[in-house]
């Protein structure tokens, strides 16, 4: 046995040699990106539950030779001319571990399951008590369509622009589902942009809030919300699911699951299921979603000018969603004779409950006796429904 030849063979087949192959330096850059994302998730606590998974997926997929995720298999899966078009069997036969997990993303399973958990964790009481706050959730979808238009101006096609625009909905699962259906090749950068900006909401929103509102407007104390009965809370998810799905059938996976989860929470007789949806299910799906989305950040696809454009457009989308919510908030302030604090409009970007907390903090800075949290939760959860409707519209228009 030639020991030297064996050692040489081991070295030549090792992943380290991959870094010296053509384009291997790109993997090194992506590993650095993964480490930065890990730092942001662990140290800075930027949406750690998802960002840590995404970052680790990014690390694993860019280690040469690991073979956990195969972009080329998924290219064949999407290529109508390929014999393996839409063949999950081929993926199961040839794929690696993350390819199997990624099937859940491809089939739109994980975002929908996460929406069951989100529904089970959401109290729609403030929205039911003050249905007008629904309008703020709609207004804050402005950034979605602004970024969509901006993406078209920057040369993206309709499907890609729609997927980029939905970042402005500030709703991770909605962004992932829309992107998966319309422009799967952009999934990595879009998911990373969406979750990073959601974590940055306490930094992105306050300057815009202060620029667009006066001290007097920010210090408005709002009246206490009426009490919402249990029956109303039970009827709400049934009503919303029925109505929105009939209006825009393409919203069915998101709205259907969101409202199902909420019904589990409110019935009072399915506590075990509600508990599973909020905890075990949510955690397991988040785990799979994070690592498989992270794995799509293959160096050859991620390190492009388009990624930088997506990151910039995502930030614009978030900013303009906040602007849309605030402007309609100001309109409601005028129409209500100064009874509505326009800051709650900024909470219309979903990002539950971070955006509502930001409204509370800014309101309290203007007036220490101001408690806007419950009032801001109305537009905040309305934003989830609003972004699902916006996604449904874009999926309908571009997904056929």
């Amino acid at each position, binding site marked *: 046995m030639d020991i030297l030849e064996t050692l040489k063979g081991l070295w030549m087949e090792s992943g380290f040699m991959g870094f010296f192959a053509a384009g291997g330096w790109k993997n090194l850059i992506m590993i650095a990106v993964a480490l930065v994302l890990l730092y942001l998730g662990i140290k800075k606590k930027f949406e750690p539950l998802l960002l840590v998974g995404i970052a680790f997926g990014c690390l694993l997929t860019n280690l040469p030779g690991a073979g956990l995720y195969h972009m080329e298999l998924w290219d064949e899966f999407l290529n109508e001319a390929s014999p393996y078009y839409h063949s999950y069997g081929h993926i199961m036969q040839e794929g690696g571990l993350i390819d199997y997990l990624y099937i859940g993303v491809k089939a739109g399973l994980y975002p929908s399951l996460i929406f069951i958990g989100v529904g089970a964790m959401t109290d729609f009481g403030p*929205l*039911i008590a003050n*249905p*007008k706050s*629904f*309008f703020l*959730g*709609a*207004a804050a*979808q*402005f950034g*979605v*369509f*602004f970024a*969509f*238009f901006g993406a*078209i*101006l920057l040369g993206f*096609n*309709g499907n890609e*622009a729609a997927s980029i625009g939905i970042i402005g909905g500030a709703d991770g699962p909605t962004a992932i589902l829309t992107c998966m259906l319309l422009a799967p090749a952009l999934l990595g950068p879009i998911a990373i942009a969406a979750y990073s900006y959601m974590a940055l909401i306490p930094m992105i929103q306050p300057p815009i809030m202060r620029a667009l509102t006066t001290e007097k407007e920010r210090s408005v104390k709002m009246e206490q919300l*009426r009490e*919402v*009965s249990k*029956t*109303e809370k039970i*009827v*709400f998810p049934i*009503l*919303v699911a029925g*109505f*929105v799905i009939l*209006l*825009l059938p393409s919203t069915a996976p998101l709205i259907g699951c969101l409202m199902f989860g909420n019904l589990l929470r409110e019935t009072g007789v399915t506590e075990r299921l509600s508990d599973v949806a909020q905890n075990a299910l949510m955690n397991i799906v988040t785990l799979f979603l994070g690592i498989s989305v992270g794995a799509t950040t293959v160096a050859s696809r991620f390190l492009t000018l388009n990624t930088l454009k997506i990151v910039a457009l995502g930030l614009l989308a978030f900013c303009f969603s906040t602007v849309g919510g605030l402007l309609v908030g100001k309109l409601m302030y005028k129409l209500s004779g100064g009874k509505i604090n326009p800051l709650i409009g900024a909470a219309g970007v979903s990002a539950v409950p971070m955006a509502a907390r930001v409204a509370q903090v800014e309101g309290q800075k203007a007036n*220490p*006796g101001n408690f806007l949290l419950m009032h801001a939760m109305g537009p905040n959860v*309305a934003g989830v*429904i*609003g972004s699902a*409707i*916006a996604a449904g*519209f*874009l999926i309908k*228009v571009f997904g056929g």
Partner: protein
Amino acid sequence: MNIPDALVTAVMGWAVVFLGIALLVLLVAAAGRIMTAKRPERTLPRPETVPAAPAAPAPRKPEAPGTAGDLMLYDTPDRDAAMIMAIVADELKIPLNELRFISIREVHKK
């Protein structure tokens, strides 16, 4: 997709979101109105139906000026409750007699 089409799609998309939400507002408000109308109102017993008071009712203690009524305490000693109320008033920079505490309950972790 050309720029005019993109603009029309963007405007139409936002309009569809608003329209959908507006219809939802009407639906939710109507459902809320129907359900709150059905809810039996909690009315106080009419004076004529109130049973006669005991012969010698104990005189009520005079309430402190600005008080908002009785506070219900669950598993919370008076002394702790007083401290909690004082801290909340201090944090909010609002005089204690302008705040209304309805109940204070100790939350036991499972």
